């Protein structure tokens, strides 16, 4: 097992290098750049732009810039945000807390809700409640999250509520933690949870349902039933455990969505996560921030996959034996 993990980590290094070259190249291919955007302001002269270009080494050939950046990474320096005149790592760190909190909470809520619903809809395939749940599922899949956000906010407004966007009411944002602040957060939190989680819940629910239906038609389930096992044992010990396997691999892919999936929802709902920060950096071509975030996303994808593989091996003995 340890061998396996080590091997995976070793493979990850050249992969990440390749990704970084690609991402760097793509950023350079964009028309215009951070400095060209500066010219938009009437006060910025060409001279200023040239001076700043030298300040940030942007006058060097692309490969020199890349090696410079790579050298920084080795020393633990992720470069500088042109936009904010601050180290990239500080800026990411400032936003990490709420990003992880929101993502973890939504992922948790998604799984806790979606798996039982998937099982339920598989077992009661033609019942009216399943039909309703399936409809909600399709709605969740088909509706863009910003639209769900706007709909919910409209509903809150119409019903006289004031919790439209953000994680707190204005007076609690910079207040120290208290019971009232916690309650205020709960009052706000349900909207982002629904907006960010609806899509994932619907996906996982439908996958779980399809997998379970598949498994329930297998011979070994019939055998289990034929040998007189209780239906409870057949379902939980034989069917669900097999049906959930593909979903574990899927879970590994969810880690990078920490960064990218909440961009639009966070912008619409004014959430203090990394999403809008990435969006700003992309628009302004703040290249080292973009590099850092895309690389982080790549690392998370690899870590997620690795974790999923380990988890799969742990859940499913067959994989261990192979």
């Amino acid at each position, binding site marked *: 097992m340890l061998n396996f993990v080590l091997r995976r980590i070793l493979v990850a290094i050249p992969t990440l290098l390749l990704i970084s070259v690609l991402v760097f190249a793509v950023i350079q291919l964009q*028309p*215009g750049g951070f400095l*060209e*955007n*500066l*010219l*938009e*302001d*009437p*006060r*910025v*002269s*060409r*001279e*200023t732009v040239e*001076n*700043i270009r030298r*300040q940030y080494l942007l006058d060097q050939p692309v490969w020199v810039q890349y090696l410079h950046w790579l050298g920084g990474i080795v020393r633990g320096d992720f470069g500088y945000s042109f*936009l*904010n*005149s*601050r180290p990239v790592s*500080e800026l990411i760190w*400032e*936003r990490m807390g709420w990003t992880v909190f929101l993502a973890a909470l939504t992922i948790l809520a998604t799984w806790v809700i979606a798996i039982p619903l998937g099982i339920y809809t598989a077992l009661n395939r033609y019942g009216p409640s399943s039909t309703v749940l399936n409809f909600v599922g399709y709605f969740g899949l088909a509706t863009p999250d910003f639209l769900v956000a*706007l709909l919910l*906010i*409209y509903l*809150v*407004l119409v019903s006289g*509520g*004031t*919790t*439209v*966007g*953000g*994680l*707190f*009411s*204005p007076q609690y*944002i*910079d207040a120290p933690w208290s019971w009232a602040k916690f309650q205020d957060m709960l009052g706000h939190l349900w909207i982002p949870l629904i907006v960010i989680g609806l899509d994932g819940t619907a996906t996982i629910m439908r996958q779980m349902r399809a997998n379970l239906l598949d498994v329930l038609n297998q011979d070994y389930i019939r055998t289990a039933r034929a040998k007189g096992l209780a239906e409870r044992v057949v379902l939980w010990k034989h069917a669900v455990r097999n049906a959930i396997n593909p979903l574990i691999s899927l879970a590994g892919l969810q880690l990078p969505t920490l960064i990218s999936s909440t961009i639009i929802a966070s*912008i*619409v*709902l*004014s*959430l*203090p*996560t990394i999403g*809008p*920060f990435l969006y*700003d950096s992309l*628009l*302004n071509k703040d290249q080292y921030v973009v590099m850092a975030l895309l690389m982080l996303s790549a690392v998370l994808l690899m870590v997620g996959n690795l974790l999923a593989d380990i988890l799969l091996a742990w859940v499913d003995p067959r994989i261990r034996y192979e």
Partner: protein
Amino acid sequence: MNRRKLLKQAAFGMGLGVLAPWLSGKVLAQQAGQANVPANLFQEIGKRGGTLTLPLGSTPQSWNYFAVIDNFAYTVLNNIFDRLMQLDQVTFELVGVLAESWTISKDARTTTVKLRSGVKWSDGTPFTADDVIFTFTEVASNTNLRANQAATLTVAGVPLRFEKVDDLTFRVVSNKPYGAVLQALTFSPIMPRHKLAPFKPREDPGGYSRVWATNTDPKEIVGTGPFMLQSYVPDQKVTLVRNPNSWRRDPQGNPLPYFDRLEYLIIRDPNIQVAQFLAGNLDQIPITGAQFPDLKRQEVATGKIRVLRGSTIYTSPPHWGFNFDVPNPELRELFRNLTFRKAMQFAVNRKRIIEDVYNGLASLPGHGVAPGTFWYYDTRSYLGEWSLERAAGLLDSLGLRRGADGQRRLPSGKVLEFGFTYASDSLPFSAIAAILQNDLRQIGVKLNLQGIQQGTLLSTATGGNFESILMAYGDQPDPQLRKDIWQPGGQLNYWHRSVWPERGSSEPKFDQMFPWEKNIWEIFRQAEQLGDQSERKRLYDRWQLLSAQNLPVIMIVKPDAVAAGHARLGNFYARDSRIIFTNFSMFEK
């Protein structure tokens, strides 16, 4: 009758005539005597206390004013720092802020400015001419800083000199007369020398740009403005509190600001800003003409909010630019042909755009100058009426005949079609694009719409990466401040890039210019070096006329200013078609 009542009545009387407000404003100022801010900001005397909550469209990048180009940071910092002088919100004339008075020498080369006495920085240090000299010489004219003002602090290639006379007086000296010198001084907020000089902006601009980042201890950010920074929660909120050393006084001599706290909530989505405003979490929001009718209905229905409209200098009038250097030779020749551009102007249905796109909250545009202001020259008669027949007639006269399919043909026999780049994430721009495309189709011209992000519009334009484009530049109080746009060869004069100077040269390529472009270039060169405002006005009049006749770009409309605020806000009002409010004069009723 107490003073408050008197003021209310005076304010009421102001609505009656056009001259009355100006007169009563003067009377009011004389009576009070103590106010050191324009009296026309006050509809009534306010009461102290409360929190003013406003939206901020994105996270501020830094608290170091000259190190970032970021309107969201500026929105916050403008409450913390003061300028020397500012434009009056009603008269658009210069009024002193940190400057008390100023005189310009006869040869228009020396401006002597007397500073307000008794002003202190928020940490108690006295404000002096040294701060002003530091700000202008070390920071504002430092071309190594991103948001420097060097361009406006230079005349005929020579930087202005700033000299201290005594602790509260300084001189600005130029080699040639400089007519826009006072305007140039309005751009830079004055920074505290005692806090920032140790970071050596001249010697180490890179290092200086990193100080006062958003994670700086708020106590370090020291200003003379009405508020000071208290805390910042990334991506959520900026909190300011009253500056205890604020020097501003209302007409009764009460200290300003009235509000104890000023909070900015960071809300990116304009729809959510409106929702937060309607939910009562925000006191005021900037809105567009498109949102006006909806909110006006809310105002009438609930009485909880007030929606104002007025005219202003600064809104950005959209214009239609043609790339004179487009690679396709046939289109290039066409775009350079005035008759063609005139035909296109006839196809611009300004009336419909004002009514349908801006809900009536826009008016006919000027050519580079906001209508109704000092420098404006009335060019409206050159805009012409919308007429597809006349447009078609002009196209016919160019030999662009319609084929059997109704499409016009270029001389080579190819269909007359070209790209129209616009910001698809801007509601008015998309609507204008659709209207133009539809109208041109009727006269056999095919417009290929190319929607791009608003944020990339300018780099697309200055990169020459378009055939025709819908752009907008904000107007400024003095044409000199916009010469980069309108003077041929300027770096924002994107439609004729082939006259741009060679790298390393400052002279544009005159041999590539049209005669009228040479005239305009010369007008800007002369006007820059004149002190006499009426002579400058005469020159700029001619520039506006030349633009209206030769259509370097086709101006579309000038949008009005609109604003929405909570009914509980006092001193938030409209008068003489101006929207009047400041964060220090508003209060909670």
